[in-house]
């Protein structure tokens, strides 16, 4: 209309969310935890970048993997890190892992009606020195587990982990039981196999793999320092030790 009004009702819409693909995964050992994620970031059929980290070091003994909508993920990690810094200033120590887990729940639930479109997996070392994995849904429901996969290839990886980590559908040899926790070398093999498998069959997974390993204080890193391409990130000489392993994944 000449006066600037419309003859017909108009509708406008804005979708504030997007899905950036990728997959994350964490496995807890008896005295270590492995947290991994691929580095491809995509939207639809387009790859935005082949290197966008989804796994972040929070403290000397806590690592957070975020998957889903990358913008929300990055902002969420930023805010968690900020809250952890405030905690350090107030209490002169790092926040314990289980407290970080609860913090993440409250931070996610605070956005209950406009959620961070992100699946979180928190891994690290508990105060008692055990390896721990906490997994979250976008609004903060969480649970401590021994292993969890999330993201685009969750449906490919999780049943494989059920089989290889929990020994589901497997019977132990007579007179033996299945181990509650696997040694680090086995866990690393399973993680790498999971990602190469997911890369093979899922278009949103690939390019690079970042594996964080947190080993409890005083425990042997089980030959990890000799592991090909393992880089130590530890800040203190006698604290928990943290390593990162980078691997290439197929780029097609």
């Amino acid at each position, binding site marked *: 209309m000449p006066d600037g009004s419309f003859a017909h009702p108009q509708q406008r819409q804005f979708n504030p969310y997007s899905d950036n693909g990728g997959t994350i995964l964490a496995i807890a050992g008896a005295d270590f935890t492995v947290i991994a994620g691929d580095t491809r970031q995509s939207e639809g059929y387009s790859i935005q970048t082949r290197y966008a980290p989804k796994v972040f070091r929070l403290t000397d003994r806590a690592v957070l993997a975020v998957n889903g909508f990358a913008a929300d993920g990055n902002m969420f990690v930023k805010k968690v890190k900020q809250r952890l810094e405030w905690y350090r200033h107030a209490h002169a120590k790092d926040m314990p892992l289980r407290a970080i887990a609860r913090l993440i729940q409250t931070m996610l639930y605070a956005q209950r009606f406009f959620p961070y479109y992100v699946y979180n997996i928190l891994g690290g070392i508990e105060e008692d020195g055990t390896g721990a994995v906490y997994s979250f849904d976008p609004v903060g429901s969480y649970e401590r587990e021994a292993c969890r996969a999330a993201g685009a290839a969750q449906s*490919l990886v*999780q*049943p*494989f982990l059920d089989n*290889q980590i929990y020994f*589901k*559908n497997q019977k132990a040899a007579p007179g033996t039981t299945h181990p509650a926790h696997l040694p680090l070398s086995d866990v690393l093999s399973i993680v790498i196999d999971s990602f190469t*498998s*997911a890369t093979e*069959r899922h278009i949103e997974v690939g390019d690079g793999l970042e594996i964080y390993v947190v080993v409890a204080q005083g425990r042997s890193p089980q030959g990890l320092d000799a592991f090909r391409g393992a880089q130590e990130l530890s800040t203190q000489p006698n604290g928990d030790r943290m390593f990162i392993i980078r691997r290439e994944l197929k780029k097609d």
Partner: protein
Amino acid sequence: MSIMEYNGGSVIAMVGKECVAIASDLRLGNQALGISSNFQKIFQMTDRIFLGLPGLATDVTTLKETFRFRVNMYTIKEERELEPETFAHMVSSALYERRFGPYFIEPVMCGLQKTHDGSYKPFIAATDLIGCLNFAKDFVVAGTASSKLFGVAEGLWEPDLEPEDLFETCAQTLLNAVDRDAYSGWGAEVYVLTKDKVIKRTLKGRMD
């Protein structure tokens, strides 16, 4: 409500060393309600061909009957046994005949193909619901748990497995995949086909 997920069910076939395996769950459901824990989806077509039919259950039965009829007609007219590769094309044409009103089935098949020197070569194939063939070299999957089957199979399968190892790989792949799928499960069965025998095993699985 997807028609492909109305009854639930999954099938996988794998290649081994001079052998092939095919496995399926046994559930028949009406969406979330379980009706039967003994609904077979794998059918023997000839001595050396097995066919798995996951998808809409009415079409499972209809197609099983259709292919029994067509294989019999082929055998009588040609006076020779049907080869797996020929059968795959028979399946493909049968489905493509209904291109614009399809059977809601994604067939998975396996067999042993006779070669020129008289030995047998493992054969697997799958098609979509309108008959687009996929001749994979390693494994093929279909059904409501297909993404899970892909993930586990990709992690467990390796080339040249002996019959017993192939059975274990196939069984573990199926069991762990269907346990993460609400529409598949309720028991399972595995067939391993070698040049001189067929091994059928019914598996105990989670019943939830």
